[in-house]
């Protein structure tokens, strides 16, 4: 799409607009006075046809619409009904097959935005009229846009060679992809190298790691001591710079799977949290689950704790630290408590908790049957440690030699940098959020960058493996078929740009380049492939040089004129 953006909007004869009002079975027809909406629509300038239909989104309904388009010579269509993210989408898709440009079809949401949220029928009807009128104005000024098509690169990058990364690489290789796996440490394995017997496999983590690594041996390109340095490009066509020991190398990928995991919060840090009141008084040892597994790995359970006779497992979730990982931390604590108690029947084991996810019933029973005593304090806020152990309200008194805390997870600071490079949004705790982009027909879809495992949210090994498999199959779309993207674009008028560079500095997608043209002043040029159409350039421009597609400022102004008053 390289149409010359004209700063003029020509007024010509208004296009022939048809308005179809959906009754939505009986929902809309009873919640709104649709006859009034239809009447109002018919009187709008440009509207040559307005009709209320029972099920325009049904197959016969769509067929009838297609005929109508031809019969009445309609050039634009407004469908007033439910949210465009639901059925409106199907109707729009179907109408496209009649050669009507996607952007000449507009859906006015008179259900979720109107009838469902306003009980007063009269008021809702007034609003519905306005919503239809605004859509009519919008579609009258719409310009035809074509989707942006690009050929994908048939290669997948997996970032992170831990549990999920290895699983993903394996599945991807099975699916016949060209896979590159990068790991920032010297060896593959990630957290697997630090665990003992992860749930539910029964095998040691080291065995699992060995298996997964041998599965990909020879079938996946592996680079250790390597990180992602920079990312440029669009879904299906990513240009990545990888840095190995500081040396840069460029490669192209169609999709990227991010499996960098998370790091465990150390015991030292945990000891400083308000969770552990009085912990400095405690004479015994305090460790995390991870340390427990490291110490017990490979050894038989019996006698593994030496001469310690009592242990307290803390399974309570601390909202500030657990971040949706409550299940994981509880699971690990239950499993380890059960294993330890089963192997050491004389060991006194307590499990402190305030809530347990209900789907851990089996693990809970196992631990309880082994003899672990479960303690649920009435008031967790008065818990505190003394020299011998834990004290609470009432007669809560637990004396122990060892306290095992959950290995809470958090994202390391290096992860934030990676998120910036890959432009992945992060939540308040730094965990990665699955990024999306607007594709042609569907409203949202993955950007070709998939976030799996604990870097998304604390995951058990099983969950991580499941994520990995799912992501692996989803990458297919970005490496094999033509990528069709909605033409959300910014088009910078070269005659208007003054070369102030504000857009260049504001664009987070590297989609703007400054190029010398006729004079020595460099002007901004947008790369269509990289541009996501967010519009930030048009807001920081001091000039109004960028015009946005597919919805222009002029269209929004026209809609405001209807809905403002």
């Amino acid at each position, binding site marked *: 799409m390289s149409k010359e953006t004209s700063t003029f909007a020509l007024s010509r004869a208004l296009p022939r607009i048809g308005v179809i009002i959906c009754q939505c079975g009986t929902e809309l027809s009873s919640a709104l006075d649709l006859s009034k909406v239809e009447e109002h629509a018919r009187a709008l300038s440009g509207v040559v046809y307005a009709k209320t239909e029972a099920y325009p989104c049904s197959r016969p309904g769509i067929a009838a619409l297609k005929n109508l388009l031809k019969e009445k010579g309609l050039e634009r269509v407004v469908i007033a009904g439910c*949210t465009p*993210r639901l059925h409106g989408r199907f109707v729009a898709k179907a109408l496209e097959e009649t050669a009507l440009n996607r952007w000449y079809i507009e859906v006015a*949401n008179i*259900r*979720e*935005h*109107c009838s*469902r*949220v*306003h*009980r*007063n029928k009269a*008021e*809702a009807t*007034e*609003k519905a009229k*306005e*919503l239809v009128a*605004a859509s009519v104005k919008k579609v009258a000024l719409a310009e035809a846009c074509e989707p942006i098509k690009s050929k994908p690169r048939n290669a997948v990058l997996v970032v992170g060679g831990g549990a999920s990364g290895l699983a993903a690489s394996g599945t991807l290789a099975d699916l016949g992809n060209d896979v590159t796996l990068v790991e920032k440490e010297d060896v593959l394995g990630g957290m697997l190298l630090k665990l003992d017997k992860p749930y539910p496999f029964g095998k040691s983590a080291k065995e699992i790691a060995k298996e997964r690594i041998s599965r990909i041996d020879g079938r996946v390109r592996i680079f250790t001591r390597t990180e992602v340095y920079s990312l440029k490009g669009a879904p299906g066509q990513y240009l990545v710079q990888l840095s190995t020991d500081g040396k840069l190398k460029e490669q192209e990928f169609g999709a990227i799977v991010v499996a960098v995991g998370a790091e465990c919060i150390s015991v030292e840090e945990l000891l400083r949290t308000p969770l552990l009141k009085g912990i400095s008084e405690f004479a015994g040892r305090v460790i995390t689950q991870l340390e427990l597994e490291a110490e017990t790995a490979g050894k038989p359970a019996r006698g593994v704790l030496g001469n310690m006779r009592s242990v307290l497992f803390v399974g309570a979730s601390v909202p500030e630290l657990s971040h949706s990982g409550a299940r994981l931390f509880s699971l690990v604590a239950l499993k380890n408590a059960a294993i330890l108690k089963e192997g050491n029947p004389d060991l006194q084991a307590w499990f402190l908790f305030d809530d347990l996810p209900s789907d851990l019933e089996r693990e809970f029973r196992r631990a309880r049957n082994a003899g672990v005593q479960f303690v649920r304090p009435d008031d967790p806020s008065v818990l505190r440690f003394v020299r011998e152990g834990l004290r609470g309200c009432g007669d809560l008194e637990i004396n122990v030699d060892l306290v095992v805390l959950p290995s809470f997870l958090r994202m390391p600071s290096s992860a934030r940098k990676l998120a910036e490079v890959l*432009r992945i*949004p*992060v*939540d*308040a705790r730094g965990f990665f*959020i699955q*990024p*999306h*982009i*607007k594709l042609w027909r569907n*409203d949202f879809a993955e950007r070709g960058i998939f976030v799996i495992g604990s870097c998304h949210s604390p995951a058990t090994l099983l969950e991580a493996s499941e994520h990995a498999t799912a992501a692996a199959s989803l990458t297919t779309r970005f490496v094999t078929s033509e990528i069709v993207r909605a033409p*959300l674009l910014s088009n910078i008028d070269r005659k208007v740009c003054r070369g102030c560079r504000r857009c260049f500095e*504001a664009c*987070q*997608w590297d989609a703007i380049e400054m190029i010398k043209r006729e004079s020595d002043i460099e002007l901004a040029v947008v790369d269509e492939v990289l541009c*996501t*159409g*967010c*519009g*930030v350039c*048009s*807001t*920081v421009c001091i000039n109004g040089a960028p015009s*946005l597609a597919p*919805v222009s*400022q002029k269209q*929004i*102004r026209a*809609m*405001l*004129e*209807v*809905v*403002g*008053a």
Partner: protein
Amino acid sequence: MADKRRSNVVIFTCSWYPAIAADNAGVTNQQYPSDARIITLACAGRLTPALILDAFGAGARGVLVAACKTELCHYVNGSLTCKEIVEETKDLVELLGIGAKRLHLETFDSEDGQRFAEVVSEFCGKIEKLGMVDVDAVPK
């Protein structure tokens, strides 16, 4: 005495959390005042001061901007840009005699329809108390 002139509250939403939340408000039958009018933009980052002023110019009594929380913006800095724009426009709106209270930015970090409805209801209620914007008729 309630002003009989018609006037609405314009709500600009970006197409991510706020738009989904707005739909969810409908799905779960939340209720909010019927003078709310939603206009969905691809990204809140494309909202210029002119568009906000145009909303008031068209007759809106209040403008609510609904964007994603800045760290969660799918376009990276769209929401942050929007925040700066709303701050700047508040200064203009004060100068124009409309008053910064009639312009508000709310950020969302989830698709919760109930929250959307609550935010809209609260804002519309505030605007209702402020009444219509003071406008002079053209002298003869």
